[in-house]
């Protein structure tokens, strides 16, 4: 489920939400149950200088600091929250 908003002053807000049900993963070290989880990704950006520059801030996996999505024979690793900034230059 996602939603995109663009405002006339060059600001935009983009949200995506996902729900993933619980799952059982079969590994060499035994079965691992992965709980269901919600995942929320968000991006805010502002365009400047006649749309020549875009400043963005992106947050992924905002609801959890850490959560596992899968498990295999090498172990169970957790997906981390990710927040990053980005500057994009457009030239035509």
């Amino acid at each position: 489920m996602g939603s995109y908003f663009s405002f006339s002053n060059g600001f935009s807000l983009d949200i995506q939400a996902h729900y993933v049900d619980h799952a059982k993963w079969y590994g060499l070290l035994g079965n691992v149950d992965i709980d269901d989880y919600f995942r929320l990704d968000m991006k805010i950006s502002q365009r400047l200088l006649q749309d020549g520059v875009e400043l963005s801030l992106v947050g992924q996996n905002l609801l959890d600091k850490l959560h596992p999505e899968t498990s295999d024979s090498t172990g169970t690793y957790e997906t981390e929250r990710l927040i990053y900034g980005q500057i994009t230059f457009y030239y035509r």
Partner: protein
Amino acid sequence: MDIPAKSIFKTLRNYWVLHTANSSAAVLLFAAAGPAQNCDYLSELDLEDLLNIEVISASKREQRITDSPNAIFVITAEDIKRSGAVFVPDLFRMVPGVDVVHSYGNTYGVSARGFNDRLHAGCLWWLTVKTYTTSFRAASSDHCSQTRISRGN
């Protein structure tokens, strides 16, 4: 109405199969073109025009998405830009029927059918790019201007 997407597809040239799979397995097609395109026009299209978006992934020739012989989901350049996804598999989270799991680092499992797994081998990846040297899993979504997913061939 003239849909600029047409011109994007004309720029698609080289198909590289990065990961082949058993032909009976689920097939996932992935195509990306070089430079990012301005896709603001997509928000101005009405429903009928959106249905007339042309794709080439299913039959290797241009055809309307509604004439395609299998279910295709198009992730537009606008979707890619607004998703903020760093890695291409993160884009597939928005596709109905596709299961994406992040194992660790740049390692993902993507499955359209059956059980998913790290390094899942049930998918066929087609990359259409101008200059591309890295592996699919590490592919940055910055390199894509459009992605098409075809579930089940």
